[in-house]
C-alpha cells in the first residue's frame, strides 16, 4: 500500500491514527470531519463523533486482505479514485492492507506468501474483503489465482478471518457473472463459503463511504453492525431508495418524465415511468451519493437500475420499463397487453356462448332443485 501500512501487519508499537494522518498532511480538523461523516453514515447521534475519534485513535489497526475474483475492479476503483484527503483514504490508512491483488507491490509467489503469512500469524483476527463473484462450476476452474481456484482459496482465507466483507453486487450475490445463463456457476461469497460471517455491501460499484462506515463501526464498537435478512448492514441498506429520493415529491404529485429529454426530464420530474427501480431497491444512494457526495444515478437524470439487489441483471431488466417481460411470451409483450388479451378472449368466448344459449330452447330447468 504505502510506506506506513504495506506488509508489516499490525505489530506492536505502531503509530496512532492521528500521527499517521498528520505525517500524510491530513489535518486534525479533516480527521474530525471524517469522524462526523462516519457518525452520520452510521446513523448515530452527532454527539458520538468525539467518541468515534477517540476510539479510532486508540484502536489497533487490523490487518486486511482484499481478494479479487470475477469482477470489473469497479469497487477497488471506487475506493481509490477519489480526491484527497478522502474518507476512503483515511480508512486505508487505518487498516493495514497486507494483500490486495490490484494494488499491492508484491507479485507472484511472494504475494501469495504474504497472504499465507497473514493466515498463519493473524488467524481469527484479520478482515477479508472479497470483490467479485466466485465460480462453482467444474470445481471452480473458471477463476484461479496463483494456481488455486478462487473457491478453494476463498474458503481458506475467509474461514480463518474475523469477518468477511463482500463488496459490490458480484461478491454479495453473484452479480453480473451470475446473470443467466451463468456459464461459470458464479455465486456470492455467502453461497461459496457457507458458515462464515459475511457482510454484504452490494452496489455497482460499492459506495466507498459505506465501506468506511462499516469498518469504523467494527473498530469503534468491536462488532459488526446489525444486518438484514440477506446480510446487508441496515445503516446503509435499511431504507428503500424510493422513500428517500429527492424526486419523490414529483412522484407523489403525479409528475413524470415520459420521454428522455422531454419537459418533465428537464424539470427533474420522477423517473418512475421510465422504469426507475428505486421502488424495488434498498440502498442509501440518495443520501450518501457517490464520488464524495457529488451525485447518484437518479440525481443525474437516469432511473435506478436496482444494481444492489440480488439477481438484478435478470430481474430488474428491462431497465427502462416498469415491469419485467412475461416469461414464455414474446420479448415485447407487456403484462398489460397480455392481460387485455385474456380479458378480451374471455369476453369473446362467453359472448359467443351467450348467443348460442339465447338461441337454444328446452334447456331450462323445471325448477326442481336437488337439495
Amino acid at each position, binding site marked *: 500500500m504505502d510506506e506506513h501500512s504495506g506488509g508489516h501487519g499490525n505489530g506492536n508499537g505502531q503509530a496512532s491514527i492521528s500521527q499517521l494522518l498528520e505525517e500524510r498532511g491530513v489535518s486534525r480538523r479533516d480527521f474530525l470531519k471524517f469522524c462526523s461523516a462516519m457518525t452520520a453514515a452510521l446513523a448515530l447521534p452527532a454527539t458520538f463523533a468525539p467518541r468515534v475519534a477517540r476510539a479510532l485513535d486508540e484502536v489497533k489497526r487490523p490487518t486486511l486482505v482484499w481478494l479479487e475474483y470475477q469482477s470489473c475492479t469497479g469497487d477497488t476503483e471506487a475506493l481509490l479514485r477519489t480526491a484527497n484527503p478522502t474518507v476512503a483514504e483515511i480508512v486505508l490508512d487505518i487498516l493495514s492492507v497486507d494483500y490486495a491483488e490490484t494494488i499491492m507491490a508484491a507479485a507472484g509467489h511472494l504475494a501469495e506468501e504474504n497472504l499465507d503469512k497473514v493466515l498463519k500469524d493473524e488467524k481469527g483476527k484479520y478482515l477479508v474483503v472479497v470483490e467479485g463473484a466466485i465460480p462453482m462450476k467444474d470445481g471452480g476452474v473458471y477463476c484461479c489465482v496463483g494456481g488455486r481456484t478462487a473457491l478453494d482459496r476463498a474458503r481458506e482465507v475467509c474461514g480463518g478471518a474475523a469477518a468477511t466483507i463482500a463488496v459490490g453486487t458480484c461478491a454479495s450475490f453473484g452479480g453480473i457473472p451470475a446473470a443467466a445463463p451463468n456459464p461459470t456457476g458464479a455465486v456470492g461469497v455467502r453461497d461459496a463459503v457457507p458458515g462464515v460471517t459475511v457482510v454484504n455491501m452490494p452496489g455497482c460499484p460499492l459506495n466507498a463511504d459505506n465501506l468506511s462506515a462499516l469498518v469504523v463501526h467494527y473498530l469503534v464498537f468491536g462488532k459488526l453492525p446489525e444486518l438484514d435478512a440477506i446480510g446487508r448492514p441496515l445503516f446503509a441498506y435499511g431504507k*428503500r431508495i424510493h422513500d428517500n429520493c429527492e424526486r419523490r415529491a414529483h412522484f407523489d404529485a*403525479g409528475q*413524470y418524465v415520459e420521454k428522455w429529454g422531454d419537459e418533465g426530464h428537464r424539470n427533474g420530474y420522477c423517473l418512475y*415511468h421510465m422504469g426507475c427501480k428505486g421502488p424495488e431497491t434498498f440502498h442509501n444512494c440518495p443520501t450518501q451519493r457517490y464520488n464524495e457526495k457529488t451525485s447518484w444515478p437518479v440525481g443525474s437524470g437516469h432511473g435506478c437500475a436496482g444494481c444492489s439487489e440480488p439477481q438484478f441483471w435478470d430481474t*430488474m431488466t428491462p431497465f427502462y420499463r416498469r415491469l*419485467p417481460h412475461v416469461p414464455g411470451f414474446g420479448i415485447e409483450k407487456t403484462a*398489460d397487453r397480455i*392481460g387485455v388479451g385474456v380479458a378480451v378472449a374471455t369476453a369473446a368466448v362467453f359472448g359467443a356462448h351467450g348467443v348460442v344459449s339465447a338461441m337454444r330452447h328446452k334447456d331450462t330447468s323445471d*325448477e326442481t*332443485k336437488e337439495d
Partner: protein
Amino acid sequence: MRKLENRYVWEVPVRATHWINMLSIVILSVTGLFIGAATTVAHSTSDYTMGWVRFVHFTTGYIFATSVVSRIYWSFVGNRYASWREFVPFVTADGRRRMMQTFRYYLFIDRTPPDVVGHNALAGATYLLVFLLYLLMVLTGFALYGQYAPGGVVSRLTGWLFLVISNQGVRLAHHLTMWLLIAFAIHHVYSAWLMDVKEKGGVISSIFGGYKSIRVKG
C-alpha cells in the same frame, strides 16, 4: 306434488362480502392500473395525485383483505350454502360427477342445467380458485406495501416472499393476477345471467336479497 318455496340462501355476511369484494376489486383495479402506468396529471408539484391514488389503493386493500378473511371465517360458521364444503366438490366422486354435469351443460352437450339451491359444483370449485387469487393479491399487495418500512409488522409478515420470488416478480404477479380477476368478473356476470335465465332460480336477485325461489320434490 311440488311446492314453491322462497328459500333464504345467502346470509347477510355472504352478500356483504360479495359486494365489498366487487367494489374493492373495481377500485383496486382502477387505482392499480394508474399506479402501474403513471403519467403526468399534476399541474404543480404541490399536487398529491399519485399520493391520493395510492392512499385509496392501500385503504381499499385493507378493506378487501378484511372482507376476504371474513368470508373465509364465515365458511366455517355460516349456513350450508356458505360452507367451505361447497368449494371443494372435487374431493368426492359425487361432486366430480356434478362438476362434469355442469361442464357438459356449458359445452352444449347436455340440456339440463345444474339444479341446485346453492352454488353449482363447477361454480363452487371456480370460487376456490378465485379465493386463492384473492389471497395471492392480498399477500403480494401487502408485501409490496410493507417495503416502505422494513422491520415493521407488515414487512415481518410478508418479507419472506422476496426471498422466494424477486421483487419485480412479486410486482408482476400482482399486476397479472389483476387481469385474471378481471377475466373472472366477465365470466362471472355472464354465467350469473345464464343461470338466472336457464335455472329460473332468481340467482341474480338472490345476491341482493338472499332468497332463491325453488320448487322442491315432496
